């Protein structure tokens, strides 16, 4: 396949540019709904939240550097670990991966935008406000301190009567809505807007990963939204869902939380692993080995991950038979995970390796994630988990999984797609320094924590006594955290320096095979001047003359000034319709602001503020719906 730059009359090109352009100016910036603008904002904002969460981690590690320290004190420490977990899960990992999905998927599958651009913009604004809302608690003095899991009764009205937990519940619920909105968008995009010819077996692995995790979001996030609303009702109007004294059950929260919380791990992991598999061809010069098996195992992980949640509750005193099921299911997920890892190794084995920073992150991913996976199989055993549950062993385990399986792939991916996003290359030397600091640092931080778990150190303790054999390992762990932080500084500096001053990248600096590299870097607002036709999993590696479709592409001329995308069939990706997309608008921003205003009214128990907020929500939705896009069948 090829793209068709410049294969058109100038007038048609001008109409295309005009239809998709966003005029300069702040208001226009606010009203931009293009998937690249929104995806980019998600990526930048979530990266900032990653750094904020990292600062909290440094504070905690400093407090635990030695016995009986008083750097933070108990209140601040408990707030720090609550915000750290909440930030990393809800404000960094999921938004970052959805942001990468929003930016990259339309490019990878050869379309011009996501199918619901305004919904997409709405998601971003709500996400930004959710983050600000949560962190606003710092200025009110009642900072959430119930942990990222927020178990009642501790988080209930009796023990946390102040507004700290309300900040958490409402803020997190907003991020859940953002996740659902983004997931809907991505599912429809991947199902219905692939370039002609991109059959199921030609979908890039990252798009598969995003599809699987988006479908999971649609099933996994609603339970937490429901659970959070029930807890908020307990807190605000005195219901007793979780109050044992009135016949409620605090364990119900744990079920609702973890039936969200465990799939959540894989909602982050699946697209991140898929990022690795999508970068792999460029650094091995080969297609990935056993692509169908890799895709099937991603789907399998998605399914199995809904049957694991009770392994977070093995110490909660549930019946033995129920727990036995969850042991088997939890361990079984190692099989599709093993397929991913060995496919990766097999691909490297068959390929010719290009030694750059991206490959380092791929290798780092294997080394760290596999270790986390092995300890994951261990904690799936009920009996063994009774010892290590809620200890530093588990802290070590899931940081190996999440740093290895999510953070390293994301850092590698930002390295790999930075040229596409900015048109500039990152510095390889700084990139490698950052990798080694982060990789070495995280191992030094978390490996000793396995041992601390065995030595009896529970999680979420703000201090410890000396003489327990914990001092040395805690010191190592803190030093490792400092090294990791240095790595993130170098990494961020590399991005900041090369943002505008890096070496120009050109369209395809890695000689990579997928469609996002077929257009300019950074891509024009319309992505592709004509929608390409795809006849391979790796279209850019196919010999040009082999493509039977020549230079022509769909939508190579626009009627008037419309934003148009192609709708195609789910299985065979045959183009069947042309859809017009709505243009830039401020309604999503107004709607998101109104929701925050309404929730703010709930927070401060003000009927008036709440009513104004709610009325504005309704009003802005009416404004939003007043003009819809047109549909035309061809």
């Amino acid at each position, binding site marked *: 396949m090829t793209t068709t730059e410049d294969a058109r009359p100038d007038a048609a090109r001008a109409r295309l540019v005009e239809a998709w352009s966003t005029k300069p100016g702040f208001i226009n910036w606010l009203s931009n709904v293009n998937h690249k603008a929104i995806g980019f904002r998600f990526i930048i904002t979530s990266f900032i939240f990653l750094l904020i969460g990292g600062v909290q981690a440094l504070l905690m590690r400093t407090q635990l550097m030695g016995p009986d320290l008083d750097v933070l*004190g*108990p*209140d601040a420490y408990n707030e720090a670990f609550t915000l750290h977990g909440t930030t990393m899960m809800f404000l960094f990992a999921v938004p970052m991966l959805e942001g990468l999905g929003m930016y990259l998927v339309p490019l990878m599958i050869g379309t011009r935008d996501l199918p619901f651009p305004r919904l997409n913009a709405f998601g971003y604004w709500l996400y930004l406000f959710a983050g600000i809302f949560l962190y606003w608690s710092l200025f009110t003095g009642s900072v959430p*301190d119930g942990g990222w899991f927020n178990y009642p009764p*501790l988080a209930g009205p009796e*023990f946390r009567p102040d507004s700290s937990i309300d900040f958490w519940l409402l803020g997190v619920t907003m991020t859940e809505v953002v996740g659902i909105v983004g997931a809907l968008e991505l599912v429809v995009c991947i199902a219905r807007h692939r370039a002609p010819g991109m059959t199921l077996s030609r979908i890039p692995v990252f798009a598969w990963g995003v599809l699987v995790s988006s479908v999971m979001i649609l099933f996994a996030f609603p339970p937490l939204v429901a659970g959070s609303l029930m807890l908020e009702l307990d807190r605000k109007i005195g219901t007793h869902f979780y109050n*044992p004294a009135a016949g409620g059950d605090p*364990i119900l929260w744990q079920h609702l939380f973890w039936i969200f919380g465990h799939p959540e791990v894989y909602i982050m992991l699946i697209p991140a692993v898929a990022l690795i598999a999508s970068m792999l061809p460029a650094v091995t*010069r*080969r*297609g*990935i*080995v*056993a*692509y169908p*098996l890799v895709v099937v195992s991603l789907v399998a992980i998605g399914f199995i991950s809904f049957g694991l949640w009770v392994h977070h509750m093995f*110490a909660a005193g549930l019946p*033995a038979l129920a727990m*036995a099921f969850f042991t088997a299911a939890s*361990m*079984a997920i*190692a099989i599709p995970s*093993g*397929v*991913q*890892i*060995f*496919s990766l*190794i*097999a*691909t*490297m084995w*068959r390929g*010719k*390796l*290009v030694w750059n920073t991206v490959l380092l992150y791929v*290798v780092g991913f*294997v080394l760290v994630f596999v270790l986390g996976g*092995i300890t994951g*199989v261990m904690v799936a*055993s009920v*009996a*063994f*988990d009774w*010892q290590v549950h*809620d200890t530093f062993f588990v802290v070590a385990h899931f940081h190996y999984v999440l740093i290895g399986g999510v953070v390293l792939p994301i850092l590698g991916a930002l390295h790999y797609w930075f040229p596409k996003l900015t048109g500039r290359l990152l510095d390889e030397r700084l990139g490698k320094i950052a990798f080694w600091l982060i990789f070495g640092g995280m191992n030094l931080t978390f*490996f*000793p924590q396995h041992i601390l778990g*065995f*030595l*009896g150190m*529970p*999680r*979420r303790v*703000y*201090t410890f006594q000396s003489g*327990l*054999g914990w001092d040395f390992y805690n010191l190592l762990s803190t030093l490792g955290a400092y090294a990791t932080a240095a790595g993130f500084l170098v990494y961020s500096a590399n991005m900041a320096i090369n943002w505008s001053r890096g070496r120009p990248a050109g369209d395809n600096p890695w000689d990579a095979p997928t469609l996002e590299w077929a257009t300019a870097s950074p891509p024009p607002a319309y992505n592709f001047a004509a929608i390409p036709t795809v006849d391979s*999993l790796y279209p850019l*590696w196919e010999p040009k003359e082999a493509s039977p479709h020549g230079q022509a592409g769909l939508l190579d001329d626009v009627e008037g000034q419309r934003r148009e995308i192609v709708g195609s069939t789910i299985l065979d990706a045959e183009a069947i319709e042309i859809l017009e997309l709505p243009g830039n608008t401020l309604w999503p921003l107004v709607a998101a602001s109104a929701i925050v205003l309404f929730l703010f009214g709930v927070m401060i128990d003000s009927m008036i503020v709440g009513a104004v907020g709610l009325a504005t929500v309704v009003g802005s939705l009416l404004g939003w719906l007043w003009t819809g896009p047109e549909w035309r069948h061809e």
Partner: protein
Amino acid sequence: MRHRAARLAAVTAALAGLAACGDGSALAPKGPDAREIAGLWWLMFWLGLAVYVFVVALLFVVLRKRGKVDEPVPATPREGRGLIWGAGVGMTTVIIVVLVLVSYVVGGRIYDRRGTGGLRVEVVGYKFWWEVRYLDRPGAITANEIHIPTGRPVDLVLTSRDVIHSFWVPELAGKLDLVPGVRHVLSIQADRPGEFRGACAEYCGVQHANMLLLVVAQPPDEFEAWLDRQAQPRQAPADPLAQRGEEVFLRTPCGACHRVRGTPADADVGPDLTHFATRRTLGAGVRPNTRGHLGGWLSDPQAIKPGNLMPPTKLAPDELLALLAYMESLT
């Protein structure tokens, strides 16, 4: 490469070995539950290590392969699928089946011991301490220190009065949550006399870190003597200073929260203090129970354990001395 893998294995084993020794470790078991779980760990450790070394070795073989970077090959290669089926699916499945079965056996044995002890001790979680009631011996109530006879299983009946806590003594057994409104049974057993440190393992609020406890295993006759004593009310103080201390105790707010059996003080907001002087720690393990620490605790418990429910008590120096003498008489 082989050296690197071997070195990695050696370092891993050495580090894990370090964890095995040392007091207080889950891998230095002193009772049957912890011993069986430690055995399960070592099985999983060696299997896990073998898998990890295999993956790392394979990875390094692959990474050392040199060759000119050439034209890319778009086709999905068929080679290497044997590795995926053999190692990714086959090896993983076999290991998992073994681990699931062994895990069921170990878990089953631990379950079977629960409820067979005969001796039943209720452990009630409070923010941030443990109440301990010997259910078969009315009146025997203590806190933050559980005495058990050696060589036989003891059933702990776990519940909570406020939020969720979790009972964990790593040398003896795995953990089990204390959930308000529910009673869970955990069996612990110590083979030999000794003192075993425990802690709350479920985040329960500001002083979760200092919700500690001690299990003291004693030969059965020693334990019976201890239990007899605990069941009795306090011995009226003979020493005049201690007598004055009791007056101070009952006059100040102390008695509004604590119980000293044999006196009008009969509240259960804070720990039972009837035989306080026999206990090894104060403030749920936050300090050793010595005169100096006790004085500091009574003067300002919030300085030692900020956020615990005990308010500071304003006492004149002579009142404090009297109170200390009284507390020390509660044997």
